[in-house]
């Protein structure tokens, strides 16, 4: 074996066997994707939080519900989640309200259903890609371990052909195999952290949405 082994990271990666290299490539892609989702999600959630705060402030400042609805309906694609929920509920309520003398509880039920449907959709959008982060966080270490085990197997197989086994014969193989584990952990740790953080944030948003729905239903009931 070559005595002057290139012990830099690149040297180790380029010396690794094809399977280990494929594992490393997969882990690199997973890491890139998960970081991309992490940043996207962070931006989206921050936006959702500020939108929600802004809408709650508007809503509870005692403004006209009709004008709020108009504004929400006009800028639907830019509206925040809470705004959409409000818009869906208010629209349903105003539609059901039209025939005079209709059953009030039926109108309230319709409003609730419309709001909860929008709520589900909003939650779906917010939770989008979180599953990917969870997968990367739980599976990437195993994939890295697989690459490592494979690489170490190779190192020891190469060892079986030489008469005198020295540490310097196995060490490069083990080092390059361990890079796979390192990459797996590198991909997994941020993914797990981000997943926990984001699901916590989303839970808090969901609580806010649900309480808003309850309060809005009360207002509708009082009005109707």
């Amino acid at each position, binding site marked *: 074996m070559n005595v002057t082994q290139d*012990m*830099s*990271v*690149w040297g180790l990666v380029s010396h690794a066997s094809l399977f280990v290299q494929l594992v490393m490539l997969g882990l*690199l892609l997973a*890491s*890139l*994707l998960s*970081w*991309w*989702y*992490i*940043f*996207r999600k*962070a*931006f*989206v959630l921050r936006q959702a939080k500020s939108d929600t705060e802004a809408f709650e402030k508007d809503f509870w400042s005692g403004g006209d519900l009709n004008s709020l609805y108009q504004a929400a309906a006009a800028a*639907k*694609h*830019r509206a925040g989640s809470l705004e959409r929920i409000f818009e*869906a509920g208010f*629209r*349903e309520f105003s*539609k059901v309200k039209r025939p005079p003398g209709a059953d009030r509880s039926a109108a309230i039920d319709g409003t609730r259903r419309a709001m909860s*449907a*929008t709520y589900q*959709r909003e939650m779906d*959008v917010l939770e989008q890609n979180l599953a990917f982060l969870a997968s990367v966080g739980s599976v990437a270490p195993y994939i890295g371990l697989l690459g490592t085990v494979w690489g170490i197997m190779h190192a020891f197989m190469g060892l079986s052909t030489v008469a005198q086994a020295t540490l310097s014969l196995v060490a490069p193989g083990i080092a390059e195999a361990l890079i796979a584990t390192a990459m797996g952990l*590198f991909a997994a740790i941020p993914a797990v952290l981000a997943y926990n953080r984001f699901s916590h944030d989303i839970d808090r948003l969901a609580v806010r949405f649900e309480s808003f729905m309850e309060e809005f239903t009360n207002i509708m009931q009082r009005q109707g």
Partner: protein
Amino acid sequence: MSHAAVRQPFQQVREEPKALLAGALALLVHVVAVVALTYGFSIQTQRNEPVSAELWAALPPPAAVAKPVPAPPEPPPKPELRPVPKPPPEPKEVPVKAPPKADIELKAKEAAKAKQAEDERRRLEEAKKREAEKVKAQAQAQAQADAKAQKEALAKQAEADRIRREQEELGRKAAEAAASAQAKLMASHIDKIRAKVRNFIVEPPGVPPKATAEFDVVLIPGGDVLSVKLRRSSGNALYDEAVERAIRRAEPLPIPPEPQLFPQFRTLLLQFRPQE
């Protein structure tokens, strides 16, 4: 309920203005991680080479290593400082041979006239003879001077020869001194080599202590062994083999680091004796 009242879920496509920024940030995170990893590793890869040291009771003096370059022969003794060779003893002026004695008795017997004439003739003859003698003496002197000059030249030549011989002698002595210094150095290095090899010898039992194994060892620069040949067996094949193995295992053999000394260490004759 009118159709317009039904909300289409796909209307919900909403803009996400920061998706591209998020992608750029994700890339940035990886680039930073890779750069940090690369630099972190490259710092750690500067391994310290293990230092090997050998301990010797008597080290060859380092000066001796530099010496083997044969000292420039002493400047040849300047001829003008040499005692000027004594000129050979001046050849004594060879006396001009005395002219033959005039035959006076004859003159007396003869008549005065005849005697006179005879005298006259003789005188003339004598003068002539003298003249001839003179010329001859001159020639002789000339020849003698020539011989003297030649002798002097010969002496000078002999002197020069002597000086040259002396110089040669001196040069040879210097060369001999250098050679002996080198031989000493070589011997000390060979001792080192043998000591190192001896560390690796696993002696088989029952080798007579007087048994000597001789090996011709060919080295390459750096001290690695190119070939080992048994020149004279110790009489014990096991011991021969043990020594040969030891020579191989002892490489690189401790030869002097100076490349100009290597030629003397290219082929070595090493002797080994058990329990030395």
